């Protein structure tokens, strides 16, 4: 046990050091385009994995909540594109964006809180698609083309103005949110949430509010996703209904599943794998002797299918199994030596 933990701590320390030194080690494109994207989608996927592993709720609404925060920020701060064009300073957009998306998360969570498992998946997917259609159809807040020209506060600046600043901000926020999740699951609330996940009937008879725990956990997940949404519009400068389309929703699910739905660390492993595969292969045309085999999406679908079929716990599941094997072998070897 302690061996595994020591190995994992070492890996985490190395990964964090690499992340901190990334601007020195890698190209600006890698840092500002790819790694920043990894962190942003890692946070969204982390909110999904948090809900799935500690609350037993696989939510497909995380991408929608992420996008809602982005849309609110865009509506609040832009001047002359689509949307409400309220034209406030970027600083003034941050809190309303996070607050409104989190509040919508509270409503979403409250309505779905008496369901679990597969029902929860269906209800949250419905939220996601309805949010997507709403932003597509309601011209006043976005419309089909979305909102352009979104900028972060000038001290952070776009990636062109200040390379690496947004990256470091995303890194700090990702680490803080990771620590926050680790803290929350150890609090009384986190422990009773896990009780609700495993034994809802027993917890209910002990006097715990099942629906309340699920609702609050979902709201916390929405809070994380909305922070990622603000970072996303700062990074991308643009948000449109496709940002929260079915494809985008499934991409976040795929990231979470590649990483493994059991541990929040998996979110960043999955995002790393997804973003880099995407970057390398997105433009590739897969064809054999003139017959088109499909685009990048087919490949991602196949990888997703393979992972669900072979290792439902994703890459971290493979890692955990390897570690278990290692652990089992060591006592056996020791016992054999003792004979």
């Amino acid at each position, binding site marked *: 046990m302690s061996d595994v933990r020591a190995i994992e701590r070492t890996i985490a320390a190395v990964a964090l050091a690499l992340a901190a030194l990334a601007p020195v080690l890698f190209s600006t494109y890698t840092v500002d385009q790819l790694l920043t994207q990894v962190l942003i989608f890692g946070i969204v996927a982390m909110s999904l994995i948090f809900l799935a592993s500690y609350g037993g709720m696989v939510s497909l609404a995380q991408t929608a909540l992420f996008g809602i925060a982005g849309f609110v920020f865009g509506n609040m701060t832009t001047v002359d594109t689509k949307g409400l064009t309220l034209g406030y300073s970027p600083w003034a957009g941050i809190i309303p964006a996070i607050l409104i998306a989190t509040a919508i998360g509270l409503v979403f969570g409250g309505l779905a809180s008496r369901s679990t498992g597969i029902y929860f998946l269906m209800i949250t997917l419905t939220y996601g698609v309805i949010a997507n259609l709403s932003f597509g159809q309601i011209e006043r807040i976005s419309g089909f083309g979305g909102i352009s020209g979104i900028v972060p506060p000038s001290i952070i600046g776009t990636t062109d103005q200040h390379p690496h600043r947004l990256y470091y901000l995303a890194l700090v926020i990702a680490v803080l949110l990771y620590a926050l999740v680790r803290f929350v699951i150890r609090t009384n609330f986190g422990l009773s949430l896990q009780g609700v996940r495993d034994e809802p009937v027993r917890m209910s008879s002990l006097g715990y509010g099942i629906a309340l725990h699920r609702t609050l956990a979902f709201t916390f997940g929405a809070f994380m996703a909305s922070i990622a949404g603000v970072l996303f519009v700062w990074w991308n400068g643009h948000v449109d209904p496709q940002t929260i389309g079915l494809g985008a929703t499934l991409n976040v699910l795929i990231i979470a599943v590649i990483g493994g739905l059991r541990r929040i660390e998996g979110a960043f492993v999955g995002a790393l794998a997804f973003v880099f595969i995407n970057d390398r292969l997105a433009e590739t045309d897969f064809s054999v002797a003139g017959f088109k085999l*499909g685009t990048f999406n087919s490949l991602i679908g196949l990888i997703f299918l393979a992972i669900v079929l072979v290792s*439902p716990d994703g890459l971290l599941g493979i890692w955990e199994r390897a570690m278990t094997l290692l652990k089992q072998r060591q006592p056996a070897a020791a016992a054999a030596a003792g004979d």
Partner: protein
Amino acid sequence: MPVALSYRRHLGWGVTLAAFAFGLVWVVFLADRPAHSDPTAFFSTLLDAITQGALYFVVASGFTLVFGLMRVVNMAHGSLYLVAAYVAIDVQRRIITGNPDTTVSSTQVSVINWFVVLLVAALVAGLLGLVMQQAFLRWNQGQDLRQALITIAISVIVADQVVVHTGGGVAEDMSFPGRINQFVDLHVKGFSYSGARLFILGLALFIGLALWLWLKRTRTGMVIRAGVDDRAMVAALGVNIQRVFAIAFFVGSMLAGIGAVIGTSQTAVSNGTDGIWLLNSLVVVIIGGMGSLAGAAVGSMLYGLIGTFSAAYLPAGNTQYAVIFTFVLLAIVLAVRPYGIFGRPA
């Protein structure tokens, strides 16, 4: 505790009734063209809503059939619709013009031709669903989340394959037979209505009735209903439950294909239609209750009514907000009956 529960329940029903009453008053008296001054528009909207609901029912009944028996949420149900729609367009054009790229107009289509296309597309969707079930879902029985993820993965692959092999997934449509696709005089104060939409309603009623008779009156149907209640017991009694599963999945997928032919004769299909029909099926079963045929019927009608009426009766310039009302309907149902109107906890 019981006091709080009953209070909550009454509140829920109260809100539901209030919302319904307000909607009715709005449509009859307050809207821009209220029903009491323009009854023709009202009845035409009502028929639109019912026929739209009929189409929802055809597709969603397949979704709910599969779930009811196997607890499989087939997230690729919309993908079956998408594939069947493109197959149907291709077949109809090949039969009539010999060229899959030449569009056909309604006058060229005979009733026989349309039903041949319906049969082909339904079989393609049914077989596709059957292959999916046998190859990927059969050996994961009972792991409902994993099965849902498998069907999501398949839907991602199918969506991409459709885009690649239909030249980008651009909008295409097919046509109803010319004899059906005309306005029909209903002989009520000279009111005439789209024959195609009445035809959809007739087909949906026929399909609903056939499904009901199949489930209530035939041996397979009885086994399916028994399987919904207690799968293990049915298997223990010596019934080959795997065969029943395969039949149900085939029929459920076929219904997506039938819905696709009807739907594509009405509105064009394009890349993204799979997501819309997955949403439609999900909304219907969340409202009506998973696994219940009656629930699918009621859910379809409510969903059709709310969508059509909000689009027609919102104040001018605000019809873009219609989609919000779908969410409101969903929210009311989830607040009052978390498992849907006819649903029960698994």
